[in-house]
């Protein structure tokens, strides 16, 4: 069975400091991983996907198959980054569904 683990429920950093939100997964096949974000009073939305190897709003995430991790990183946090972040994994094959982690609430302090 697939599983996504986000070990930190809460994470606080100061503005300008680096931030890393941890995500580990377990899945027997070849995973597709995503980060979703929910800003205050907004809908849950896609932030980035590993397959695109993109940087969105300064965030990057690298898939490490050896460590089964997909940590989200940003070198210099901004106050507007404060939000709830969810790591998610999609199963391959016909039963394609997103499995979410429990989320990490990031607070960037001034």
């Amino acid at each position, binding site marked *: 069975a697939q599983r996504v683990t986000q070990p930190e*429920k809460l994470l606080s950093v100061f503005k300008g400091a680096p931030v890393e939100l941890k995500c580990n997964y377990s899945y027997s096949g070849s995973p*597709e991983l*995503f980060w979703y974000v929910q800003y205050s009073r907004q*809908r*849950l*939305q*896609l932030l980035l*996907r590993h*397959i695109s190897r993109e940087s969105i709003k300064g965030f990057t995430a690298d898939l490490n198959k050896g460590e089964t991790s997909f940590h989200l990183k940003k070198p210099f946090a901004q106050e507007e980054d404060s939000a709830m972040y*969810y790591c998610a994994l*999609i199963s391959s094959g*016909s*039963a*394609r*569904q*997103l*499995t*979410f*982690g*429990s*989320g990490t609430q990031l607070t960037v302090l001034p």
Partner: protein
Amino acid sequence: EAGVTQSPTHLIKTRGQQATLRCSPISGHTSVYWYQQALGLGLQFLLWYDEGEERNRGNFPPRFSGRQFPNYSSELNVNALELEDSALYLCASSPGVRRTGELFFGEGSRLTVL
């Protein structure tokens, strides 16, 4: 472009009653997903519909059911409500079963069971 819309925004029921939640996907999207977001538990997958068929369901009892209509809108029904069913129910849509990854979420329906 209109996003995913859900109704009602809030719903209050008592134990044993039934609740019906509705979702309209983005125009052109054929897949609809339902998630339960209970306090402290993250998003738990409930149901996935595509082209009118149930494609997959999560680890929830049979009293959680739903359907997808020919216009791709969807309904989630929860029978014999229990206190622990109190949660935010999120609907999401995507362009179809062969497309990957990005789900577009609604604002949710908050169900309170007293």
